[in-house]
């Protein structure tokens, strides 16, 4: 470019110098979504990635994130970790090193998330974890890791209290017990049951691929339990519920499985499911949450032509946590400062999930853990119905979490 006259040059310089004073500068802030976009974990990861995109679009449409004199417009890039620990490490490394991402969201699955958590403390980054339920992720107390989803055993204790209140004293457990967080749920459940003099009379296992649980159920039947607790993935769990009826095991059935009506009805009839309980975080349950949830549901359906999954809002809320924290910190340049802002952040008004406040009305506790309420759901005439909240003490749990390393 040739400057024809010194006058042109002077005009250009002056206008450039004046620009910042005329309007605030705009920058692009890259959000890195690391999640299981393909493979077995995609049922959790893809909806999270969608939720992040939706939140980012909403924020940009409303003018972006205003921090100090800078307005940030969000740009979302996604990276598939296939719910695999090695892939996750590579995926996040690429996001940090190649794409210069400081803000990582998503994280649906425990194995891959734990792998990233093991090195993220040394990075200039902030990691917000979603659906991954493994307790150790926040028990370690890493300063730049925060999680919107409560650890499985937080729900397990609440479930144990509930089932004990219902009068069960000899409970037989059947579940995917080789998976860490299911065992943690059961252990917390057992502690509460023991408090009232009840006990777990059997702990039978099944794998993700198993479909015939009649041997385990026959054994349980012989022990004459007054209730059974089923913890595991919806696909095999549905068979447990059906086979329990086929074996004449007529005791109350409590579960920690999640799963939509369609997923269950593929395997078991509605009549066979009647009365089954699901004791889990309330997650996206329209009747238990507020207008925010209804709006989220409607917008998600419109944007993606499918209904949002119950756990997808964990990721949506992560984006609003970031927005509010960056505005509080005054800038997005220093991930450490933003992390400090997250630590004392009150629950954002845009959050969809219902969180329980910690000390100082902060959303996250000392370990970076947020707590959503737990609910008791029951299958009634073909649908999961929200019956009541499960009594949950997040402050007591938070103290417990602080005292352990995993």
């Amino acid at each position, binding site marked *: 470019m040739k400057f024809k006259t010194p006058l042109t040059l002077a005009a250009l310089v002056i206008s450039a110098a004046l620009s910042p004073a005329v309007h605030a500068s705009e920058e692009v802030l890259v959000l890195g979504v690391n999640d299981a976009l393909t493979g077995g974990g995609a049922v959790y990861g893809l909806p999270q990635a969608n939720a992040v995109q939706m939140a980012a679009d909403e924020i940009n449409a409303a003018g972006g994130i205003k921090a100090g004199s800078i307005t940030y417009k969000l740009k979302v890039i996604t990276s598939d970790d296939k719910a695999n620990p090695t892939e996750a490490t590579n995926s996040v490394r690429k996001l940090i090193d190649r794409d210069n991402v400081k803000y990582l969201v998503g994280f649906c699955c425990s194995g891959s998330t734990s792998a990233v958590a093991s090195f993220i403390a040394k990075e200039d980054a902030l990691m917000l974890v979603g659906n991954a339920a493994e307790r150790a992720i926040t028990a370690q107390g890493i300063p730049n890791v925060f999680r919107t989803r409560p650890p499985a055993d937080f729900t397990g204790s609440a479930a144990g209290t509930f089932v004990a209140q219902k009068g069960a004293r000899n409970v037989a457990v059947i579940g995917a017990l080789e998976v860490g967080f299911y065992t943690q749920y059961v252990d917390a459940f057992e502690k509460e049951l023991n408090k009232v003099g009840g006990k777990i009379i059997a702990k039978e*296992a*099944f*794998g993700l691929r*198993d*479909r*015939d*649980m009649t041997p385990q159920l*026959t054994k349980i039947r012989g022990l004459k339990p007054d209730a059974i607790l089923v913890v595991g993935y919806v*696909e095999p769990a549905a068979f447990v519920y059906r086979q329990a009826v*086929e074996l004449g095991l007529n005791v109350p059935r409590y579960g920690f499985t999640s799963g939509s009506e369609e997923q269950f009805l593929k395997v078991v009839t509605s009549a066979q499911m009647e009365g089954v309980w699901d004791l889990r975080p309330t997650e996206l349950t329209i009747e238990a949450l507020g207008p925010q949830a209804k709006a989220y549901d409607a917008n998600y359906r419109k944007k993606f032509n499918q209904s949002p999954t119950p756990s997808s809002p964990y990721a949506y809320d992560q984006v609003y946590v970031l927005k509010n924290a960056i505005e509080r910190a005054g800038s997005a340049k220093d991930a450490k400062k933003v992390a400090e802002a997250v630590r004392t952040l009150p629950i954002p008004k845009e959050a969809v999930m219902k969180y329980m406040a910690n000390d100082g009305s902060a959303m996250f506790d000392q370990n970076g853990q947020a707590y959503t309420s737990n609910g008791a759901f029951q299958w009634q005439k073909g649908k999961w119905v929200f019956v009541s909240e499960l009594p949950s003490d997040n402050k007591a749990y938070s103290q417990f979490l602080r005292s352990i390393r995993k």
Partner: protein
Amino acid sequence: MNEFLQQILNGLAIGSVYTLVALGLTVVFGILGIAHFAHGSLAMFGGYLTFVFSTSMGLSFFASIAMAMPVGAVMGMLIERLAYRPVRDAPHINAFIIALGLTMMLEGGNLLLFGADQVIIQTPYQQVFDFGGIFVAQLRMVVIVTAVTLVAVVTLLLLKTKTGKSVRAVAQNRHAAVLMGVNVNFVSSVVFAISSALGVAAGALIGALLALAPGVGESFAVKGFAVLILGGLGSLPGAILGGLVLGVSESLAAGFLSSAYKDVISFLIMILVLLVMPQGLMGKK
């Protein structure tokens, strides 16, 4: 006692499915010497096909199976002609490698055609009968009866028909059979047709009793081979006995020892048999 009988009954239903799978494997192995590992995935394909016939065409369970079996038979014959026949006279390892490759192809094909979510074939046999504390699900009875019927039909086919005689001749001594004028290519096709038709039926029963999903076929193929080793390679009565023994052992082991070791039992039995009685329960020495 009740619990013991219940476990045995539960085990018999799964065992009869194992028998069907093993039968399909043993005819191919015994007569053609091919370790047809892809049988499990073909069985799954048959199960998925049965599901498609029953849902999209509204056919009854058995009508759907009856339509899927010929399709399976044709696929089996195609596989024999295109994949195995070219390596018929080569070292056995070649056929096994091809079998593995076929497994991957079929699994991939099933995934593309039918998706990754589990598929269950709905049947009208949902009743449960209570015999003094022992509960018998109607569907399990249907599975056992179907398997028994198919085994009987195949046995009759092999023992009483001229084609069956040709098949047995090739099994005994291929070269002599050729000299006696038996068309070995025809026999190979027939064997694969029978094997695959049985596989399709097994897949349909698995789809009705349990579920069809990626990976299920392979695990049934492995159990099928365990049954072959237990019963004796190439022995039909061995496959029948072996299948039932494996099914019941798994049930009893999971019920009285530990559910965590249910799948391990099949491998333990394989190892024990190979150590103590390598020819299997009914195999020839």
